């Protein structure tokens, strides 16, 4: 599995659609998440990955539950994702999650900070 496939597989494992941030169809149905794609190797610094949650709802319950789900999956020690030539170590950034306002009051958003350390050749 390439790094790109490994990241997509991880971010697609939460029960909602996942899109790379630069690859979201305008007609994509909510809820979904977007993530910034990052690539590096063992000699690089930790890369920042931003996850945005998009929900069409007037309640915070579902989107906050998804924040908790992602927090639990990453865990306090991070999550190692296997890929070709090694693994990607996903860790929580700080702050882990923040809410964002949207022009449409029926859209709820959360902004999640992660970092990725590439343990690959």
């Amino acid at each position, binding site marked *: 599995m390439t790094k790109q496939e490994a990241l997509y597989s991880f971010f697609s494992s939460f029960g909602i659609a996942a899109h790379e941030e630069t690859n979201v169809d305008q007609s994509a149905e909510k809820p979904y998440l977007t993530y910034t794609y990052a690539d590096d190797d063992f000699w690089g610094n930790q890369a920042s990955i931003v996850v945005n949650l998009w929900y069409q709802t007037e309640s915070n319950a579902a989107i906050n539950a998804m924040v908790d789900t992602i927090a639990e999956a990453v865990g306090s020690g991070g999550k190692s994702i296997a890929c070709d030539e090694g693994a990607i170590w996903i860790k929580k950034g700080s702050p882990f999650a923040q809410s964002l306002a949207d022009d449409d009051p029926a859209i709820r958003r959360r902004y999640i900070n992660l970092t990725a350390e590439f343990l690959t*050749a």
Partner: protein
Amino acid sequence: MKFTQIPADLAATLAVNAGVLATAFVPSTGTLASDDIIGATTGGVSVTCVPSYTDFGEDVDNCPKNTKEMKQIESWECKMSGTFVTADTTVAKMLLGAADIDSIDTTKVTPRATIDSADFDDIWYICDYSNYNGATNGGFVAIKLIDALSSGGFSLQSTDKEKGQFAFEFIGHTSIDDPDTIPMEFYIQAGTAEPA
């Protein structure tokens, strides 16, 4: 570049995160009970196991220093050190080493002028290891410090608007009944995938 390389099994052989100190751990099953965690630490934990050598050839004419046939081990010093940011009476007693928790006023810990055999106890350091770190089959590095006793005593450093810090240093001990047993054991277990 020819030698700018990493091992092919890098991700599978890395020890990661700060780990924990505990009073008990079962390496055969990788089981750690949360009640057995001694306290939260800051800045990680330092674990060392260092031999002291005597070079019997050192003062022998015409014998080079560090001749392997003349080297003898004098002793091992096995230590765990770091800083706790949490403490209760049990931790205070551990830090003092020779101390007692009052049987009537259980909030009171009193240092003692003599060492009891009960003051020595095993301490485990455990951290995540390998690229499989799931709750059931996660890999670990576990190190057992045998018959540990605090050698650093009790130390509390407070700072305005920060957490109090309790520095610790524990040294393992050999028993006179079993002088060949070095007071530290190491377990390195690679993780495997969690059941689907």
